[in-house]
């Protein structure tokens, strides 16, 4: 075919600019590490990262409302990609504020660079218009995350987490890639929206490819049974990395999944093709919430809760309705902030030596730090779906979606799962507010007060979402 360069224009690079800002800043952070003394480089790196995410976020928000196919459809600029990029960037911003000395003191520029790179990957995934771009984004994201998991080199669990994540995620990437190859073989294109020709229907090879491709995405979303890595990896990875993984990875994978479901699969005669995904989502709601029951480590608890929440979000996509994608985007945004908020609280309970993720660290917190306990309670209530919180509204939207589309068993499981999850989250609240005679956990001094800003951002965001629960129409707009 004739040179594609004639299609490449400045606008294409502008569409990609937020991701390029973030990725480029990561390189600059490494340069800072090379050229500046250690102490200065540490601070500079965090500052650079924060500035880059804010700039990229502002720039991305400017392109809200623009619909454009960049690089011949390889990268898509539409409402959906902008909103998901913003979610990724905000979670990056919060993650950068949560660093703790224990995990990432020595390598802070490297930590910042890796977080920024994984953020770049997630942003590329959010706008991926072709399978190649999608895979590229996924690998940028995953490779950085493998390193991030193991960045606390003196912690055995961290290394173990990194190793497990590397092995299992590579396997999943292999599935994904194999699925893509089959899809390409079946259709002769890698452009997601061109994968299916409405007239020809679902071809056997296409179905197989799509099935295997979805396994890869299900792994990234940690849907049962592809969730099995999540608790161990979440527990082992440093706290900020866990926070990032639980939100940004999900955002990237969910954007890809939404794009595939809404543009590449003919509705509604492809119900059967997506059915396994929704069965996995249903299983996630149950296993996630039941698994969280017995946990005493906040990171592990939130890992299981993340499994369940991913199930809720995917359930919204069943039937591929307008209401569904709206609910999914809303719930993802709300989930991102309540989850990050909970992690930020945990960061404030961490010292240089130990991460405050054991449930005992929360005992009597209400008496010691009432404001922090109140914030944590707010996030937990929202995660549980207490009425009038953003979490509740999101669940209501998803529930009504499942009823509208006829996938009501998913809705029923959502209700059951939420009922179970109340116990899970109230365990944390009870620990904070129960009267204790003597604090068994020593008072800790967090290495920095930055997480307070993160807590504030998240709390404000959740409150705002509560009052403005309707995404503007463009937020869920696809360019095919």
């Amino acid at each position: 075919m004739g040179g594609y360069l004639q299609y490449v224009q400045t606008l294409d690079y502008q569409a990609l600019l937020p991701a390029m800002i973030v990725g480029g800043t990561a390189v600059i952070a490494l340069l800072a590490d090379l050229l500046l003394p250690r102490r200065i480089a540490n601070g500079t790196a965090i500052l650079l990262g924060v500035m880059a995410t804010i700039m990229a976020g502002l720039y991305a928000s400017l392109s809200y409302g623009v619909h454009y196919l960049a690089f011949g459809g390889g990268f898509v600029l539409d409402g959906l990609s902008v909103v998901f990029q913003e979610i990724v960037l905000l979670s990056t911003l919060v993650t950068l504020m949560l660093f703790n000395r224990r995990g990432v003191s020595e390598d802070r520029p490297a930590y910042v660079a890796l977080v920024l790179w994984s953020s770049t990957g997630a942003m590329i995934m959010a706008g991926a218009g072709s399978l190649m771009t999608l895979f590229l984004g996924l690998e940028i994201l995953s490779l950085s995350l493998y390193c991030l998991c193991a960045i606390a080199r003196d912690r055995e669990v961290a290394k173990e987490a990194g190793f497990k994540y590397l092995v299992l995620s590579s396997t999943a990437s292999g599935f994904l890639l194999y699925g893509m190859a089959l899809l390409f073989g079946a259709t002769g294109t890698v452009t997601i929206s061109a994968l299916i020709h409405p007239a020809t229907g679902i071809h056997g090879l296409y179905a197989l490819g799509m099935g295997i491709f979805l396994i890869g995405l299900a792994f990234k979303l940690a849907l049962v049974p592809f969730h099995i890595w999540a608790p161990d990896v979440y527990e082992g990875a440093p706290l900020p990395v866990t926070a990032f993984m639980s939100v940004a990875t999900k955002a990237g994978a969910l954007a890809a999944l939404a794009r595939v479901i809404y543009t590449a699969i003919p509705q509604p005669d492809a119900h059967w093709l997506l059915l396994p995904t929704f069965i996995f989502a249903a299983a996630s709601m149950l296993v996630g919430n039941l698994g969280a029951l017995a946990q005493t480590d906040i990171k592990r608890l939130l890992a299981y809760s993340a499994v369940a929440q991913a199930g809720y979000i995917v359930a919204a996509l069943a039937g591929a309705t307008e209401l569904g994608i709206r609910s999914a985007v809303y719930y993802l945004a709300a989930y991102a902030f309540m989850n990050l908020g909970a992690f930020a609280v945990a960061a404030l309970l961490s010292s240089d030596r130990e991460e405050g993720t054991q449930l005992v660290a929360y005992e009597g917190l209400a008496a010691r730090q009432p404001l922090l306990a109140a914030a944590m309670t707010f996030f937990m209530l929202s995660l549980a779906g207490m009425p009038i919180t953003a979490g509740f509204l999101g669940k209501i939207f998803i529930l009504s979606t499942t009823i509208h589309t006829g996938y009501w068993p998913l809705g029923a499981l959502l209700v059951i799962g939420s009922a179970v999850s109340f116990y899970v989250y109230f365990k944390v609240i009870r620990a904070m507010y129960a009267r204790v005679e003597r604090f068994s956990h020593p008072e800790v001094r967090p290495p920095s007060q930055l997480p307070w800003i993160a807590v504030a951002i998240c709390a404000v965001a959740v409150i705002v979402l509560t009052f403005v629960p309707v995404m503007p129409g463009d937020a869920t707009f696809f360019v095919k």
Partner: protein
Amino acid sequence: MESSVISWPLIVWLLPIAGAVAIWACGPLLRRFAGPLACAVIGAAFVGTLALWPAVAAQPAGVHVTMFTWAPGITVGLLVDRLSFIWLTIITGVGFLIHVYAIGYMEGDRAEARFFAYLNFFIFAMLTLVMADNFVFLLVGWGLVGLASFWLIGFWIERPIAVEAARKAFVMNVVGDVGIMLAIFALFATFGSLSYADVFAKAAQGPGPVMTLIALGLLAGACAKSAQLPLHTWLPDAMEGPTPVSALIHAATMVTAGVYLVARCWPIYQHAPGAMETVGVIGALTALAGAVLGVVQWDIKRILAYSTMSQIGYMIMGVGVGAYSAGVLHFYTHAFFKACLFLASGVIIHNLAGEQDVRKMGGLAKRMPVAFWSMLAATCAIIGVPLFSGWVSKDAVVYQTLAHGHPVLWLLGVAAAALTAYYMSRMMWVTFAGSFRGDEHGAHAHGHVPAWVMGLPVALLGAGSVVIGWLNWPHEGFAEFLAPIFGGTDVAPAAAWGGEFLSTQIPLFIALIVGAGIAYLQYGTAGALAQAPARLEREAAAQPAFLVKLYYWNELLDALFVTPARALAALCARIIDPKLIDAVLVRDVATDAGVLGLLFRRWQSGLVRTYALTLLCGAAAIIVYIAVVR
């Protein structure tokens, strides 16, 4: 008129909550300045309200501010049309005077700043209620005023009786809230929207039975909030709160929310004639029942509480027969004279060191001239002395019942007027005439002339009680002003029963003369005053128990609802919870969950090979599924 986001309605609406938050946050710093700050905020809101006047006067549809879309079909905005404007002037104007008064009344209280924060919060809640442009926001305001009322009735938390009264008010209001909520659900299901504009435009298309149910649900809310039968018992108890609260919330503003609701939802009632009939009957019965109970009260605030209940009965009766503007007019005048009565009674109570029993007063006219003259003006208004404000509005309401074809309600209204004239004028004579019967040393220890902060609002409101009704002149000014809202439906077509003068003014005047005359003969003559203390005791003992016990209504509600609820609770606590929930549901499930957990634990072994195997099994399942299904 559509308006931009930053606009007067928004400012008026947000000022009080800003004040409340500021005072609450900086309470310890502000100390004595909390009160003046709260007043300044409400004063500014009043000015803002007045600044809205040109727009409201020029635009029949009112000023509308759209804020945001809360959910599909529910757009939240502020609406200031002529109806809400009337309420706004009372809430901010009378509210401002009461705030000023409260500076004096609450001086030296332990938690002065908290009080003013609550008071500002209440104004915000009440503004939310009347400025809402949709039912959801209305319900939010409805709930928030209930909350503010709860806080303020129970403000003196160290008094168990006050806390009890607060709880009672809250619970009884929730009954009404549920009614409104059900009505809102039905509205949304029927019309697919909850904005006033949409609902009222489509009201004619609603099926009759549904409209009746909706109207009755709204009525339940109105009854609870406005202390109408059968949900009236919380209002007298609510007098345990500080007197400014009684004046602001339980006389001038919040308790009239029911009137506002019915007037606002008139298109719904227009299409639910049965429900509308019910509204009128409830109003009339409450007007009479409240007046009857007023006769047997000796506590000055309780007398006023029952008179409030009775007067709101008039308003509800007015809107219930379809004379919306007459009901609203009575609300307007009532806000002035009842606030004045409460504030003046507050002056008396303040000076007599907390004494509230009128039998222990007497001869106060000379000691407290401001309170006396203001209270006299307000009493003249409430009993309907010609040319006073109450005369204008009560006449209008009673006449409209007749004009709309409800002679029985007319009769009830006239009877209630006679009783009102009797017990209110009796209260005046017993309180202000004769000689002081109270505990001298208590009075002297604390009695001091009120400062102008308390005197001025009382005097202003007293003056208002006289003149405010004149707004309705030269002829039916209120109805004309409100015509864009009610579309002229509320004006009776022709002069009925020989015109207003013959059919209403004469009978009401006779009722006034009879009621006040009997009171004078019993309590006002020199002879009666001379032997007052002993006689008052005797008469109190001779009152029928049925009335003194308030028709045994509290006991009835207890027997019907509270006792069964307690029994159910006991059943749950003794049998269902330990035997069923704990034993079967919790322990057995926990055992099962334990087994399940063991399985999970084996699965979540931490070994990469187990995990990889899981992955493969999942993948194999999908592949097999696709191969089979295809």
